[in-house]
């Protein structure tokens, strides 16, 4: 085993231990999935010949490329999917915050120092909240 393999395996073990120690309630299944992925990754680090043989079997030159190619494709896709989700969640959040702001909007009447503010009228027959006309 090369020094690099030892360092990488130590890193994998350290991360697994950290995630186990800080595991939240209900996070056991996620940790198990992480264990499977890390053990598989650890096996490829400890026995690089396995990855090389698998790579040659499918026409790829190096074992590391056999692991990296699908990993990069998966990461790019995951990045796009998570960005789209964040975008959609931000849109929903905006709509909620805006609806609350419009619902609670006030028209300032008279001396504002007296705190005289008025809501923008009652809901009409269509359920919309209309400001009174001047």
């Amino acid at each position, binding site marked *: 085993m090369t020094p690099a393999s030892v360092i990488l395996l130590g890193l994998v073990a350290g991360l697994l231990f950290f995630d186990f120690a800080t595991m939240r309630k209900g996070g056991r299944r996620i940790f198990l999935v992480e264990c499977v992925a890390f053990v598989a990754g650890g096996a490829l680090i400890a026995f690089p010949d396995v990855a090389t043989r698998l790579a040659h079997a499918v026409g790829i030159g190096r074992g590391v490329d056999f692991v990296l190619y699908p990993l990069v494709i998966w990461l790019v896709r995951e990045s796009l999917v998570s*960005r789209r989700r964040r975008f959609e969640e931000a849109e929903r959040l905006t709509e909620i915050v805006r609806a609350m702001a419009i619902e609670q*909007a006030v028209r*300032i009447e008279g001396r504002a120092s007296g705190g005289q503010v008025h809501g*923008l009228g009652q809901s009409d027959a269509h359920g919309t909240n209309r*400001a009174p006309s001047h």
Partner: protein
Amino acid sequence: MRVAVLMPVWNDPDALARTLRGIRHRASEVGDVTVFVVDDGSSPPVLAARLPPPDASFRIVLARHALNLGQGAALETARKLALRDTPYDVYATMDADGQHRMEDLRALAEAIASGADVAFGNRFEGASNIPSVRRVVLFAARIFENVLTGMRLSDAHNGFRAFSYRAVARVQIRQNRMAHATEIRQQVSREARGGKGAARRTDSLRVVEVPVSVRYTAATLAHGQTSLGAIAILRDLFHRYLFGGSE
């Protein structure tokens, strides 16, 4: 003339109060002004008690975002609020930091009253004291927006503009942050040319540019957009293009 001013504000209550006092002082010159102030999650929040009181020609409607969403989101909330009221003759967007002048508001409103649907303020024709770095960025932004929207304007990303009722009803701001200025121009361009997605091809919007003088001070520059904000704008436009679906 009944004018609705759409005014987002974030974390500068003193400048807001000064700006509103200035508008109140000269509102009668324009006619009847209602300012739709949207506090975009300021901390501490804008207090109604600190705003100038209404008079015969000046009123304030105050709304508050529970979270800071961005200037575009606050403008859209103000637009929606104003559209719930009885129709105004003019809908103007103005900054809350006092860099926009009442005489320019009057000029923009008069352009709408004269038959234009959208009046974009042009800082390069007025007596604006635009810093040189900002000039370079705006020059690049102008070329970018002219190519992107197909509408040739002399200024880019100027927050001082006015709309007729039928124009403001057609412009929906979906960009929460600073890219809303480009988005507004894209929508106006589409509606002016009767292009794809326009409400009606025979009912296109008439667009004009009006010289305005924007006053840049150390405070407005510190609080406003930075030149590096252009990168964030490009990112937001790209994200909307990728994830926003067809409009």
